[in-house]
């Protein structure tokens, strides 16, 4: 199946991913709230599309402000973002850490349904309102609530520690750990080039050394260390999803847009344990759908934004996308293929580990990064997009490989 209309993503905007590691961050000092983040990202988009008058609908993606910020009904913040959005149709969507791409997908569906030509999309999450030990309780809601009691104190790190442990056992400890550390190093090196990244200020002289730190089950988890994990982040990302008519209305030249040519969505049973801990099966399905819709193969991709909430998830994603056979993902990383000068650079602004993971915003941030790369707006992070591979792919995951949205983007000026 193909998308029935041409769909474009334009006018991307990212706030800073705020949290530990940023110089401005102090856990005890006041910080912007949800609505301020939404306003910054929303205004950042509106400025590029000729203002709120051009917007038909709005979508906000947010995972769980109801617990982090005691706030629900987030669609109600759009008129706060801009008075011109008052009385416009607005909706909030949620799919745990896969929320951001779900918001983009929802916007796409509005355009396809022809109820809108211009949809403002914002993803937002503000998580530094509680310490990580309590944030773990909140984020655990991305899993099945009945597993919380028997789950790890750090629920999701525990889940991916189990996956990493299974992977070590099947494919070897040393090589996998080294690939995970390499993943971390790549992430930080990319983030150091991106002023909005949470790890932008990271000056650690020995990234491999940090990445190779032996996991400690007493203080954290059995099989992964803290550098294998994305951090706690506050932030918002925004963009507009538009039709051809929308592009004209906003006065945006085609060269400033990317076309979304593939959308693959897939859901798995939240109550079921993964069939194989060493595979991301749902990810594989969503990516396959997106590539098929785009009518391309993975070899046509110039860049990928994958959901590296944990470094092991990055390695498994490389396999799920099909770049490496099952069990060969670590080699693929170690050979340098995913580095910014590699065959197919992954997560060029740092990904979840380097740029940050404001959960509900992540899927939007991934889309914005690919938009930047394919339109030549990535500044210091810019990679070369080969003329014969004008495509980018994003994979956004909610829960432990449960709620998946994958998208294929095409450069327009080819």
């Amino acid at each position: 199946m193909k998308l029935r209309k041409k769909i474009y993503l334009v006018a991307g905007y990212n706030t800073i991913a705020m949290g530990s590691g940023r110089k401005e961050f102090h856990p005890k000092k006041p910080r912007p709230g949800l609505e301020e983040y939404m306003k910054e990202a929303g205004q950042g988009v509106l400025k590029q599309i000729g203002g709120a008058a051009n917007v038909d609908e709005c979508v906000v993606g947010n995972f769980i402000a109801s617990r982090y910020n005691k706030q629900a009904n987030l669609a109600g913040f759009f008129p706060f973002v801009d008075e011109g959005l008052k009385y416009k149709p607005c909706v909030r969507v949620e799919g745990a850490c896969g929320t951001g791409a779900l918001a983009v997908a929802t916007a796409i569906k509005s355009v396809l349904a022809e109820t809108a030509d211009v949809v403002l999309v914002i993803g937002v999450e503000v998580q530094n309102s509680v310490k990580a030990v309590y944030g773990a309780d909140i984020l655990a809601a991305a899993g099945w609530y009945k597993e919380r009691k028997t789950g790890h104190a750090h629920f999701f790190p525990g889940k991916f520690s189990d996956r990493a442990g299974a992977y070590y056992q099947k494919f070897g400890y040393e090589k996998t750990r080294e690939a995970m550390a390499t993943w971390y190093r790549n992430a930080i090196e990319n983030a150091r080039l991106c002023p909005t990244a949470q790890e932008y200020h990271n000056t650690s002289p020995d990234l491999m050394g940090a990445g190779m730190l032996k996991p400690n089950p007493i203080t954290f988890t059995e099989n992964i260390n803290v550098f294998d994990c994305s951090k706690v982040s506050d932030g918002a990302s925004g963009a507009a999803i538009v039709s051809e008519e929308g592009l004209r209305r906003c006065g945006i030249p085609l060269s400033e847009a990317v076309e979304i040519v593939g959308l693959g969505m897939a859901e798995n049973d939240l109550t079921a344990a993964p069939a194989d801990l060493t595979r991301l099966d749902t990810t594989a399905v969503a990516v396959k759908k997106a590539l098929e819709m785009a009518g391309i193969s993975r070899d046509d991709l110039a860049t990928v934004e994958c959901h590296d909430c944990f470094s092991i998830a990055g390695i498994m994603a490389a396999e799920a996308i099909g770049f490496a056979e099952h069990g060969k993902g670590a080699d693929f990383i170690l050979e340098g293929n995913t580095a910014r000068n590699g065959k197919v650079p992954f997560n060029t602004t740092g990904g979840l580990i380097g740029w940050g993971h404001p959960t509900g915003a992540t899927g939007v941030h991934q889309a914005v990064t690919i938009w930047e790369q394919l339109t030549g707006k990535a500044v210091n992070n810019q990679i070369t997009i080969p003329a014969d591979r004008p495509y980018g792919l994003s994979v956004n995951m909610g829960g432990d490989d449960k709620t998946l949205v994958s998208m294929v983007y095409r450069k327009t000026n080819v």
Partner: protein
Amino acid sequence: MTYEERLQKVLVLGAAGKMGSGILLLTTLEMIDLKLKPENRGKEFIIYALDVSQTALTGLMKYLQVQILKAAEKKINQLRAFYADREDLIDNAEIIDEYIKDAMLIVRPVTTLESAYEVNIVFEAASENPELKVKLFSQINQNSKVEPWFFTNTSSIPIGHLDKQAGLNGRILGVHFYNPPAVQKLVEVIRAENSRPELSEFVTQFIKSMRKVEVPSHDVAGFIGNGHFMRDALYGMSLLDRLMPEVSFAEAVYMVNRVSQDFMIRPMGIFQLIDYVGIDVCQFIMKVMNPYMEKEDIYSPLLDRMMETGVKGGQNFDGSQKDGFLKYDKGRPVAIWDVERGAYVDIAVFGAKCDEKLGPLPEGHAPWKNIVGDRGKDAKFRTYFANMQQMNTLGASLAVDYLKRSREIGRNLVNDRVAHHPDDVNTVLLTGFFHAFGPINDYIN
């Protein structure tokens, strides 16, 4: 009596003080973690927190609650295992709350000594007064239904003296925590001649369980920690006389403090450290130590003079620094006490002039906080202090002499059989005083 049984009934004497509150916290955590083990369910664990003031005890209970929360957040993995069979406790937040409640339930704040008559262990952190300690120990010992063990936090009084005076028959050991006990890793353990070996065995297990570092010291007044610190402080004060013909008192204090901090790469200068510990406390410790010293005079007329003017240093209840030799603004020194005029003089007025007199920092200098955790620091210190010895400036020469004196003090502690080994002296300074290098080193020729 097993380790667990012994810890079922404990008393902390002087529990609301700076040291007592820390010892109470650490012991409470050790006890509640024992109580929550499946094999100990249903057993009674009680810790009495004894102090003279109800107001102080109220503050103490609040402090305890906050600190137990912090500890619980850090060991959440362990707590989830403790409460694995409690189906009603699901979130980390619920488990942490329950743990705090359970821990607080074993603590009994009290103001009278009678509670002490049934405990197995007395941790004593009363004020550093030999007569008071002897009186409390004797009274508890005479009235006790069991034969309690006494662990004293004294930092200076010989344990053998307390043992004999209170008639404890070797049921006493020096267990000297460093301030603040909740954070500081070092515990100096002092066996008196007659201390029973089973006390040492218990304490070794206790310290290990708290993941702290035990350093043994002989029973010589001041032990290793104050044995070094008091002499080091006296040397710092003696340097004032060397500088004073040229500069004012306040300027001299500033210069010696700067040399002992920046040039010597220590976490704080010697006068700031005296203020941190308290001028009154330093004076008192010297007074306790001095009668036991045959070859030297551990005494400072300057401290007496400061005390006479009412400038005492030390800390406020919230942990903030009181003014002493130095005046502090948000923890940073901003002025120096002028002992002649009886007023503080702003560093801004004379700091630059003094810095010029001292000369530049030697090449290769790194501030203490940047180098303390550096794995390659030994080589860096070697280069830095070699450069220092090449310099012909006042700052470098004061620092070199000071480092030599600090090393001499350390070596004497070994020669005089206070420390068992030079490494023990270095460990005490590294862990108890957060120095970046031990005083017994070969950086200075």
